[in-house]
């Protein structure tokens, strides 16, 4: 059984461009108290280049079928399929790929939940090599961000601190 994964301060931090983080933070603040979700695309030389916002359809599905989708968008995200397929196609056309999936948690920490791990570990997850960035929003402000990456040789994710790159 999975347990939530928290940041491991002993792991090396991952550096993301400030512009990328600012765009994701703005997205998270704008849609709170709902969770935001989206993708970061990039290439081999610059892994985190472009942020693509995607719609969180969780509330939509919850209203349609609360038994199958017991959470609404304040407690989960369900990435709009058309949005992520389009983002993937456009990234490929630019010679990039999806390198990170991001979402927010509202009024709780930036951990990798059991549900996050369940989806990220499924056999058909579309971006198996992507990292996962979780940002925590409390009282309308982003207070924490952690990047979860599959640890080499281990069947689990590690939570890495995130550092800004001002370039």
């Amino acid at each position: 059984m999975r347990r939530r994964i928290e940041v491991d301060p002993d792991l090396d931090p991952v550096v993301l461009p400030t512009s990328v983080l600012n765009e994701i933070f703005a997205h998270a603040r704008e849609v709170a108290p709902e969770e935001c979700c989206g993708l970061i695309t990039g290439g081999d030389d610059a892994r985190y280049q472009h942020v693509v916002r995607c719609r969180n359809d969780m509330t939509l599905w919850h209203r349609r079928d609360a038994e199958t989708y017991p959470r609404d968008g304040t407690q989960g995200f369900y990435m709009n399929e058309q949005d992520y397929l389009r983002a993937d196609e456009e990234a490929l056309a630019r010679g990039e790929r999806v390198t990170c999936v991001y979402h927010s948690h509202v009024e709780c920490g930036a951990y990798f939940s059991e549900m996050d791990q369940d989806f990220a570990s499924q056999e058909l997850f579309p971006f198996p090599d992507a990292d996962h960035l979780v940002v925590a929003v409390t009282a309308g402000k982003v207070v924490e961000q952690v990047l979860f990456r599959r640890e080499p040789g281990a069947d689990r994710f590690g939570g890495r601190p995130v550092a800004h790159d001002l370039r």
Partner: protein
Amino acid sequence: MGVTVRVPAVLRALVGGRAELAVPAGLLRDVLDAVGRESPELLSRVLAQEGSLRRHVNVFVNEEDVRFRELLDTPVREGDCVTIVPSIAGGR
């Protein structure tokens, strides 16, 4: 004319890199049977062993999620488009 089955980039390796498959119209189960004849690997990722749709995979006929129609008994008519899409979700 038949039915177009759209395969997202993430699954194309299972069908020789093709973005679309052309199969005969029918119920969705017939369409997926035809997909399985072209790529048993793709079909095994869509259907569980007991024959139901896997939990993390969505199938759309045109713009409609078949979970909100008749699942595998959803009619797929000439000219329709079937899209297979793994879901991305999570939460606190």
